[in-house]
């Protein structure tokens, strides 16, 4: 044999090149061998979703003929200026709930990175085996189609006319709306102290409200201050009540002697519309055993609400606020179309909840 070393090196090089090509193909989603598991098939589907490669995503479906192309994209990419349109799929946690030879049920928890933080969406997907491959039976959405109609709306709106900086001293100006903090409760959680309660607008004009809490230590010194940020309905119409929640991370309640509350209030231009109903509110337990406060939002106006946020207030049997939870809805609220929502409740809180109240914050892109 001449050149044995050269031949050996050539053969090894060929093997390594082949291995490298196989790995790179797998990384880019090229299927070189049949998918062996339902998890891999779901991961491939959502990888295509992340890349917004809709033809490839639909090729992973077992029922592409039944799923409307635009409805599939609307379901995963969102539309109508909803929160989902400002979101990116960060990752998917997949687990098999059960599996037979020809079908399986897979739970996929999609973690979306959105403009207002992380939002997760958990779905149970049916899988069927097709040859050596697994395909997803995508649920055919039954969206309620509202008949074409003209909705008459008597818009009610408040505008504020300010005198500007040149206003004379002593001339009449607009008094800020009268807003009152009607309850406050400070509770200790494993990793934080949470101050929560409710605020009511007792005036006859809309109010813009921000609630702040300052913590006082045993020496009477103020050592922490936080605001309610988005865990409050900032715009309060007359007689409207909003919960608020202020989190103080990495703190124990025994470090706090006193809480000083402060509601900053200003008159603000506002509209009384749209009205959003919160229907069929109920406590339930999801497939993972978590306690949820669930229901449906119904936009009762003829205007699409792009982004909605649910604020849930939970009371104990004495009427004391024991928890405030919130959640963003990543679907737009179309006129008269129910949109499901669910917010988490800690298990120890859920067992004490006797009554709850859900209110809705909303953002409409066309509104000023």
């Amino acid at each position, binding site marked *: 044999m001449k050149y044995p070393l050269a031949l050996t090196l050539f053969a090894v090089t060929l093997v390594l090149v082949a291995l490298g090509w196989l790995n790179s193909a797998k990384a880019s989603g090229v299927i070189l061998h049949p998918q062996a598991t339902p998890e891999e098939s779901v991961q491939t589907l959502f990888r295509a979703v992340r890349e917004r490669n809709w033809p490839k995503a639909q090729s992973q479906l077992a029922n592409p003929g039944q799923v409307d192309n635009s409805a599939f994209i609307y379901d995963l990419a969102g539309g109508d200026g909803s929160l989902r349109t400002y979101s990116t799929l960060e990752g998917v946690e997949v687990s098999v709930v059960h599996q037979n030879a020809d079908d399986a049920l897979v739970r996929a928890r999609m973690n979306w990175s959105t403009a207002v933080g992380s939002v997760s969406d958990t779905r149970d997907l049916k899988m069927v085996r097709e040859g050596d491959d697994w395909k997803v039976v995508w649920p055919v959405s039954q969206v309620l189609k509202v008949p074409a109609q003209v909705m008459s709306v*008597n818009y*009610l709106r*408040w505008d504020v006319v300010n005198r500007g900086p040149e206003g004379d*001293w*002593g001339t*009449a*100006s*607009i*008094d800020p709306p009268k807003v009152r903090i009607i309850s406050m409760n400070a509770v200790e959680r494993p990793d934080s102290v949470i101050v929560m309660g409710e605020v*009511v607008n*007792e*005036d*006859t*004009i*809309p109010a813009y409200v921000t609630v702040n809490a300052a913590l006082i230590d045993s020496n009477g010194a103020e050592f922490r201050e936080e605001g309610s940020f988005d865990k409050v309905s900032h715009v309060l*119409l*007359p*007689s*409207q009540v909003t919960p608020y929640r202020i989190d103080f991370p990495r703190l124990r309640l025994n470090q706090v002697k006193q809480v000083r509350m402060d509601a900053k209030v200003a008159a603000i231009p506002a509209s*009384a*519309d749209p*009205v*959003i*109903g*919160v*229907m*069929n*509110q*109920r406590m339930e337990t999801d497939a993972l055993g978590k306690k949820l406060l669930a*229901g449906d939002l119904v936009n*009762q106006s003829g205007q699409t609400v792009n982004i909605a946020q649910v604020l849930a207030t939970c009371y104990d049997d004495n009427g004391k606020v024991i928890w405030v939870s919130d959640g963003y809805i990543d679907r737009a609220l179309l006129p008269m179309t129910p949109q499901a929502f669910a917010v988490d409740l800690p298990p120890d809180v859920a067992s004490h909840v006797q009554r709850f*109240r*859900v*209110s809705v914050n909303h953002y409409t892109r066309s509104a000023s």
Partner: protein
Amino acid sequence: MRVIGILFFLCSVFAILSQAQTPPGLRLPANIVAGEAVTIPSSGSGSETFYLIGPGRAAKRNIQAGENIQLSSADLGAAGTYQAIICSGDDCASTSFYVAPDRGKELVFLVHPSRIAVGQPNAISAVTVVLDRFHNLVVQPEAVTFRATSKENGISSPPQMTRNGVAWTRLNSGTKDGTVEINASLGQASERRVVQQVAAEPCHLHVSAEQKGNRVVLQTEPVRDCRGNAVPDGTIVTFTKTDKLGRSTVDAPIKKGVARTEMAFGGPAMISVACGVVLGNDIQMGGAR
């Protein structure tokens, strides 16, 4: 005796020194009012410099000793203590004088709040500050009259004398909603402010329900307070329906005096209504208990 003697000596020294400060040529009128032109006669001969230092103003003039010094109304517009200094070479002498504010000419009028519920005692505060034509605070007493006028009636207070330039009063809000005009007047000067009187908490909140197919229309009767005033539009009324599917709530604003909403109806339900802390009637629909 020794102490009294020392005090007498010191007082004498201060008296001599203060007389030395007053230039012999400056003879100021006893009472000067803001905005009045004043003539100060001077004596002596030669060229002198006159300085006038007052609140927010300072002036310097070259004068001939023995001529009258003219101070215009603009020179003495601001009330307060002035200092007049006259210098001849390096030799200066000064005197202080007080310019009193003129008679009241303008009013600054502060009324609070701008919105008030009806039937509130002493709820409206009206404060006026009297200024002269140069915007000096008029500290001498002036008679101010307050008047409140609503669509039903008008009430005037007896003239009130200002104290240190300020007069105030407190008013009850009326029994009917609408605007109330509050005037403060001083001679020809008058200032007007408007306070919005609004309905108090709703009274006898009542809802009716009408089933239309698989929906139920809920509507309140005109929402009024206990005096019959319409609760302002935009006030939130909360409708609640409890049935086998759970609890449904709608926060609906009052529009044109009534609040209205629609909900799905799928069987026996209990319906209630609330506005703020006021609860309305309950309705049982479809045999709900």
